[in-house]
C-alpha cells in the first residue's frame, strides 16, 4: 500500500517537473530547489564517517548516489532542451562531496533566534523547526527572493506546508498532554488557534510579496494557504483521535492519504468532513486523560 502510494507520488512529481521544466523560469526554480534539497541531505548524512573509514573511493559513492537520484530531473531537463541546466545539475552532483558542513551535529544543540521566539507551548514546532532549521530558512528566503517568478512562492508554501505535516507526526507523552491543564475541547481549540496564528505569521509575508508581483494570480496562493490549513488541521485531529500512551507516532498512512485528498482541490471538502469526524473522535479520546480539567 505504502509502496504503491509512493510510486504514485513519485510519478506525479516527475510528470509535474517535466511539464514545468518546459518554461525556463520554472526550470531554474526546480534546479535551485533540487540543489537545496540535495545539499541538505548531504549535510545531514549520518553515515559520512562510516563511509570515510570503510570505503576507499568515498567521493565516487556520493557522486553516483546523487547522480542517480538526480536522473529524473536531468532527463526532464534534457527532454525540454534545457541543456545548460542539465549540465549545471551534473556539475553540482560532481562537486557536492566538497561540502563538509555537518548540519546534523549542529542541529543537536541548536537554540537559534527563531526557536527562542516560538511559543513555548508549541513543542511540535520547536522540534520540527529545529530538525529542518536551515532548510526551512533557505526555502523561505528563496521563495521571498525569487517571488517575481510565478512558481516561487507557491512552491515555497508547498514545501513549508509539507514539512509542517511532519511536525504533527509524533505523539507527546502524557506529561506534556496534561501540562496544559485544559479539558479536551479547550486543548484542541488552543492547539488549532496557536497553529493557525503561527502558520499565518510565516506565510503572510510570502503571500503579500507574491500578490505585489502577481496580483492577477491571487487565487493560487490563497487556495494553497487554505488547502494547507485544512491538511494541517486534519493532521492535528488525526494525532489526537488516535492518541495512545503506548504509541509514539500517529498513523502515517492516514496522514499521507489525508495529505493527498487535501492537495486535490476537488476533494478538499472530503478532508473537511473527515476532519470534523476526527475532531469528535479526538475529543472523546482525550476525555479519558483530561476529564479532570472540566
Amino acid at each position: 500500500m505504502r509502496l504503491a502510494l509512493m510510486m504514485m507520488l513519485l510519478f506525479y512529481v516527475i510528470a509535474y517537473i517535466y511539464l514545468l521544466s518546459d518554461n525556463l523560469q520554472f526550470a531554474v526554480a526546480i534546479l535551485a530547489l533540487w540543489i537545496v534539497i540535495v545539499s541538505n541531505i548531504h549535510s545531514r548524512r549520518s553515515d559520512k564517517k562510516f563511509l570515510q573509514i570503510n570505503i576507499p573511493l568515498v567521493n565516487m559513492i556520493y557522486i553516483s548516489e546523487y547522480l542517480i537520484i538526480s536522473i529524473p530531473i536531468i532527463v526532464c531537463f534534457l527532454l525540454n532542451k534545457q541543456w545548460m541546466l542539465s549540465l549545471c545539475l551534473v556539475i553540482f552532483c560532481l562537486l557536492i562531496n566538497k561540502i563538509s558542513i555537518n548540519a546534523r551535529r549542529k542541529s543537536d544543540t541548536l537554540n537559534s533566534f527563531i526557536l527562542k521566539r516560538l511559543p513555548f507551548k508549541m513543542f511540535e514546532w520547536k522540534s520540527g523547526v529545529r530538525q529542518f532549521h536551515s532548510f526551512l530558512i533557505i526555502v523561505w528566503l528563496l521563495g521571498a527572493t525569487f517571488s517575481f517568478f510565478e512558481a516561487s512562492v507557491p512552491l515555497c508554501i508547498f514545501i513549508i506546508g509539507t514539512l509542517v505535516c511532519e511536525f504533527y507526526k509524533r505523539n507527546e507523552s502524557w506529561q506534556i498532554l496534561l501540562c496544559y491543564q485544559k479539558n479536551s475541547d479547550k486543548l484542541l481549540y488552543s492547539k488549532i488557534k496557536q497553529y493557525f496564528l503561527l502558520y499565518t505569521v510565516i506565510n503572510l509575508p510570502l503571500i503579500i510579496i507574491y500578490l505585489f508581483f502577481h496580483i492577477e494570480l491571487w487565487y493560487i496562493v490563497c487556495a494553497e494557504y487554505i488547502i494547507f490549513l485544512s491538511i494541517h488541521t486534519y493532521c492535528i485531529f488525526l494525532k489526537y483521535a488516535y492518541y495512545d500512551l503506548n504509541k509514539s507516532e500517529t498513523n502515517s498512512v492516514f496522514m499521507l492519504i489525508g495529505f493527498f485528498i487535501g492537495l486535490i482541490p476537488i476533494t478538499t471538502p472530503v478532508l473537511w468532513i473527515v476532519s470534523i469526524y476526527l475532531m469528535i473522535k479526538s475529543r472523546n479520546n482525550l476525555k479519558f486523560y483530561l476529564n479532570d480539567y472540566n
Partner: protein
Amino acid sequence: MITINGLTVNYTKDKNVINSLNCVFQANAIHGIVGLNGSGKTTLFNAIFGLKKATHGSVLYNDQPLTKKDTSFLPSENFFYFNITGNEYLSLFVNPTFDTMQWNKLFNLPLNGIIDNYSTGMKKKLALLGIIKQDKSIILLDEPFSGLDIEMCRILRLIILKLKANGKTFIVSSHIMETLTNMCDYIHYLQDGIIKRSVAKDGFISLEQEIFSLKDHEITMKINSLL
C-alpha cells in the same frame, strides 16, 4: 487523606492485577509501596493517577475523587518529545515561583541540550525537575531512585523530606527496601494486587524480616540444589 476503596484493575478479564485493594494513605506523609516484580506497583500508580481505568472501586482525596489537578506522577520509564531541549520541556509546566536555573544547580543538567542525547539518569532527573515544578499536593513516584547515581539519590531523598515538611504527600515505590526505610513514614507491602501489610516506622524491621526471611530460606534451598 487518600482513601482507596475496593480498587480492581485488570488487563484481561480472567486475571485482576489489582484485586479489590483497600488502603488509606495519610496526608503530609511519605508512603512507601514495596513489592516484588509483577506485584502490581506500576498498575496501582497508573490507576491512582488515572492512566489506567479501574474496573471497580474508587480513589478519594479528602472524600472527593482524586484528580490530576492534585497529583503529579513520575513513571518508572520516562518518555519525552523528540528533538526538544530540557529547558523547553520544563517551560511547558507553568509555575512562576519556580527558578529553573537555581534548581538545576542541584541537578546539574545540560538544559540547553536535546533530551534525546541525555543518559537514562539525566532523563530521570529532568522528569523529577518537572514533577517538582508542577508543585502538586500529592506526588506519586514509581521507582524514583532507579538510574540515579549515589549523590543524586541522597539529594532526592533530602528534597522529598523537605517537600513533605512543606505539606506534600508522597507515594513512592521501590524494589529496594533500604531506600524506603530511611525516608518513609509508612510502608505498604503489595502482593498479588492487594496490600498485605501496612506498617509505620516502628514496624519496618519486622516487615522486612517477615517478607524476606521466608524468601531467603526458599532461595538458599534452590541455590543449594543448583550449585
